[in-house]
């Protein structure tokens, strides 16, 4: 399966080579989309992980043991789908192509596997339907 996750590292360095372990020990193909270091020296990584489901689950356990928060993109970027009026205003800013209108039915769809967590949709939706959630 292919899924995007945001890894949040606490300030200070971790002792383990995290990405190396994810690849070597858990057999995960990793594509780094975005890396950030915050004001408090906490770091975050947006990763695309391609792996078997069991490997992914084990990797998430490993991350937890190392005090690294691992949140799926779907959990981070949420939208209140049943109130959507399918206007398309959010698609104007989603240059990653995660938000698109169906060619025939003109309904909005959100493809989390393309989301880069830029958060531009939050301000773009005239109904305020997007929310960024930081907790699990």
């Amino acid at each position: 399966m292919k899924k995007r996750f945001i890894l949040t590292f606490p300030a200070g360095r971790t002792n383990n080579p995290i990405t190396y372990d994810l690849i070597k020990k858990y057999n995960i193909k990793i594509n780094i989309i975005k890396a950030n270091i915050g004001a408090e020296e906490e770091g975050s990584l947006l990763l695309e992980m391609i792996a078997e489901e069991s490997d992914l689950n084990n990797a998430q356990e490993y991350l937890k043991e190392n005090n690294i928060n691992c949140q799926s993109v779907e959990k981070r970027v949420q939208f209140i789908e049943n109130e959507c009026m399918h206007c398309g205003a959010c698609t104007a800013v989603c240059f990653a192509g995660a938000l698109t209108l169906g060619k025939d039915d003109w309904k909005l769809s959100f493809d989390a596997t393309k989301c880069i967590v830029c958060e531009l949709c939050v301000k773009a939706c005239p109904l305020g339907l997007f929310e960024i959630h930081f907790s699990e």
Partner: protein
Amino acid sequence: MSTKTIDQINEKIKKGKAVVLTAEEVSKMSENHTPSEILKKVDVVTTATFGAMCSSGAFINFGHADPAIRMEKLKLNDVNVFSGVAAVDAYIGATEESETNPKYGGAHIIEALIKGEDVHLEAHAKGTDCYPRKEIVTTINKNNVNEMFLFNPRNAYQNYPAATNTTNKMIYTYMGNLLPKMGNITYSTSGELSPLLNDPEFRTIGIGTRIFLCGAQGFVSWNGTQFNTSVKKNKNGIPVHNATTLAVIGDMKQMDPEFIKAAYFEKYGVSIYIGIGIPIPVLDEEIARCVSIKNKDINTTVMDYGKNGHPAICETDYEKLQSGTITINGKSIRTAPLSSLYKARIIANKLKNQIIDETFQITQPVQNLPKNTNLTGLEIRGENK
């Protein structure tokens, strides 16, 4: 040349023999039918739009308290509401914003009232001999006010420019969030489904025309404000940017919250999405030709919202805009709508079914909309800082 009358069409509807199509369906049909064949086969074409229409609002009458008050300063859910119309009448302007929460405004109150929610009312007055009360605090809702009706001064724009931004920073507009360096283009009409693009010369739409307004049956009450018939037209007779508009009226107690939505545009303010559907009776070949218009035959102007006066960049058409990208100076730019074609289609189909079910009667306008109108700007007269 054969023609039909509205009476004949209503007669056919009664007999269950009328053919009603949406404007998109008739545009498709015109690929292999001539206007004269369409005139023979189709009786009514339904058009629709669901977009942000800032120039909207509602009249409301609260009824009198005992002792009575002549409301002078009035707030509903902390939003200022115009009460300078008699004692307990008021006008809720859709774009009026709450002083405590600028993302909440008149539009939200209108939506709440239609949903049947309670709205907090607070009013003050100086007190008069006939209206002695000086203040009142209470709640109102759809069931305990006398009347509440939308009366929107400018809706259903006949065409609208598409917007882009050539500056180096993101701008936030009523045309949505525009990425820097022409990173996107937004547009806001339903193209070939849009009401006034299907009857560009107002052959059938006029004052008194019955329309679908946010789920209720409403009426065209006047030409809308900024009604401009002097805009340059393309070869199909379609103005190439914003031109005419409609003032519309309808009973809010009959409206459906599915077809009216309060909105907030970042760093612009509160607005409201309004759903409008208008039936066009196919009376002659010329009208048949007009309702057959296709997205590729409707042009609009791309304007630069990053600069004062929004200078034009180029012209495009709705087929290209709806395709998702257009090319300007060799650069491919993503396009996105702001009005919901999804909802507009639901409205066009609903209206079509109401006409077939005889719950919606086609009307002859009481009076035509004006011709040869222009726009005036606001000159700065006298001293200005």
